[in-house]
């Protein structure tokens, strides 16, 4: 079996390997947890695999019911991106709530201190 890869496929593969290596170094230096490392390997590993063997998407598309592999890829990417955007929004929301709590507590504490002084 003679498999030939186009230059862009090799480029994608190398880029993914680099990113996995980078995460691995972070993991070794304890800057990332094992969970984050595994997720990273899965994500970049999948991208590298699809880059090298685009036919995987055709097979997956057939299984799920899409006519074209590219449709499957696009829909999946949009879903994943939406998920990330939503989770980021929630994180920001939580952070905003924490800031508000602090600010409010500080204001109320000042009032309590004033009342204590008076009494």
């Amino acid at each position, binding site marked *: 079996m003679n498999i030939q890869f186009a230059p862009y496929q090799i480029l994608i593969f190398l880029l993914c390997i680099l990113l996995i290596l980078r995460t691995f170094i972070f993991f070794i230096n304890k800057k990332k947890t094992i969970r984050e490392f595994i997720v990273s390997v899965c994500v970049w590993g999948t991208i590298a695999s699809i880059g090298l063997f685009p036919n995987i998407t055709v097979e997956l598309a057939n299984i799920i019911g899409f006519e074209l592999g590219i449709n499957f890829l696009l829909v999946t990417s949009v879903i994943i991106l939406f998920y990330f955007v939503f989770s980021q929004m929630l994180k920001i929301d939580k952070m905003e*709530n924490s800031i*508000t709590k602090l600010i409010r507590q500080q*204001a109320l504490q000042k009032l309590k201190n004033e009342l204590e002084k008076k009494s």
Partner: protein
Amino acid sequence: MANSKYSKVYIVIPAFNESTVIAKVISDIKNKGFKNIIVVDDGSNDDTYKIAKNYGCIVLKHLINRGKGAATQTGLDAAKILGAKVVVTMDGDGQHDASDIKKLVNPILNNKCEVTLGSRLVSKGMPISRKVMNVIANLITFLFYGVYVSDSQSGFRAYSSKANLYINTTMDRYEFESEVLAQIRAAKLKYIEIPINIHYTKYSRNKYNTVKDFQAQNILNGFKIVFKLVIRSIFS
């Protein structure tokens, strides 16, 4: 006034950069016989704090602007600490009429209900665009919180001390008013709606268009709020 039936009534005013009108708002309230006024300066960068202090109010300050909802909740908590029997919340831009305070407070003092909600819809002078926005906001409030009132976004409300114990909101900005309604419903507190007067001055109208918090009244921000509520209900 100290021994009157209103001596344990506290008025909460969330204020952000209201130095041009806050003095009049406070004076009007005092002239109606209410001396306990809590002004929550929500990170203003003008003299709002100083003016409110000079007028003898209890003034709390947010170090940075956190929104009308956050400021009102701080005021409600402060009223709890101060032992308020009834707490009235009203806007700091002068659109609410101090002579309506008694209309809101009396039903609570007479044990007719725990919460009174000021309703602007009967008042004259409200721009049509605002009326439409209000109807949409009412529907959204009903959809997400299951409460339908004629003016879900009115900031002019009164709470008994019992009701104040249940109000503990997390939404900082415009969504706050709807969240309060949800908590009133969850706690099964009896509420009534009271028609109130509204003064849409050039100042207050202009403020809606310039201050971030009040921009929520425009359509784009309305969408943002709905989007936020959807996300919250799905992911929280």
